[in-house]
């Protein structure tokens, strides 16, 4: 079996995997980092969004071997101990979730969006969420959370 090595949340990790292993399965099954979710498994819902070399990707639509040598960040990278990341805190404060299943992907997408454009407007956020589905909230509070979180990340 081919071997893979990458940096996940600052830690060097690796292993022998099948070529067909998806990045999300490597993260969840091999590394046991289960914060990254598999929603649709068909590249649509965005629950599996992680950052690879600083850009957001759907980890169900990337092979683990394609991330060989890359810097990968998952939802587990955000909080500092018990202190939530400003974007996570904004989701808590603005109730940007109901069941929470889509939330890891929403937050990782939001952080990528805010890094690219710190002054996000509501329409920027709605457009930036085109690849993330939420089946509970109707998005309103998610959008409010992201606008607030992006502001908080600047401070």
């Amino acid at each position, binding site marked *: 079996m081919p071997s893979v090595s990458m940096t996940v949340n600052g830690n060097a990790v690796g292993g022998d995997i099948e070529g*067909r292993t998806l990045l999300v399965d490597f993260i969840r099954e091999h590394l046991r980092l289960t914060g990254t979710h598999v929603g649709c498994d068909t590249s649509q819902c*965005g629950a599996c969004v992680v950052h690879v070399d600083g*850009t957001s990707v759907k980890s169900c639509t990337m092979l683990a071997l394609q991330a060989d040598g890359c810097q990968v960040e998952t939802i587990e990278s955000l909080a500092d101990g018990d202190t939530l990341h400003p974007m996570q805190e904004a989701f808590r404060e603005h109730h940007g979730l109901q069941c929470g299943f889509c939330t890891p992907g929403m937050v990782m997408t939001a952080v990528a969006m805010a890094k690219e454009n710190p002054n996000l407007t509501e329409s920027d956020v709605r457009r930036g969420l*085109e*690849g993330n589905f939420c089946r509970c909230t109707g998005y309103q509070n998610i959008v409010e959370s992201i606008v607030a979180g992006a502001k908080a990340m600047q401070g």
Partner: protein
Amino acid sequence: MYEFNFNRPASVADALAAVADADDGQFMAGGQTMIPVLKQRLAMPSDVVELAKIDDLKGIAVDGGTVTIGAMMTHSEVHNSSDVASAIPALADLAGMIGDPHVRNRGTIGGSVANNDPAADYPAAVVGLGATVVTDRREMAGDDFFVDLFETALAEGELITAVRFPVPDKAAYMKFPNPASRYAIVGVFVSQSGSDVRVAVTGAGPCVFRAVAMETALASDFSADAVAGIFVSGDDFNNDIHASAEYRVHLVTVMAKRAVAKAG
């Protein structure tokens, strides 16, 4: 997904050899279509030859009235390129309308063009601008490249290395996207270069095509009104849960009007 051998060559020559030497080799660009296809077991290549490590397939060059985009440039890279935005703003605009942000960070122009999905956006730009598809062995006019549903003029084992776009006087792309997938239910790319006008339609039929009657009308009067009364034939149009063929015929005219208005 069936298991396969995974190859990551660093040169075009090695990539061609890897596919040629395999029982059933398959190139993979950004994988945004191919990985879902593999998951559904609609393809079972013995070898996947991934192209991300080949520097010769990357880069954007503006030179004497043309913009050449390496096959492995992602939609995000094209969308965010100031060179593309200043030379052919309609092309940067189109790249930013593909899929969603995560798909745009992985999907590539070469992969999109090679796949020739009937609802993909890039084929409309390639035909609508009269671009040239450059491969490891030849150059093909965009008009000759897209053959039919998911079918192109590429030979077995032939690899797209770049797409070269002539800079038009003006151009614009408008699409009516599927609200879930963002694929084009209908997309229309218009361009004008001197007296030459092109109108390319994607999403509507089995393959991108030129709306010749609209081109003729726009050549004498480049205005939205000039195409308002022109309706293309929908005989072979897609007819599915997203839109009827009749509705797509209507949308082609509406998107053409909007694209002409946007081009200014």
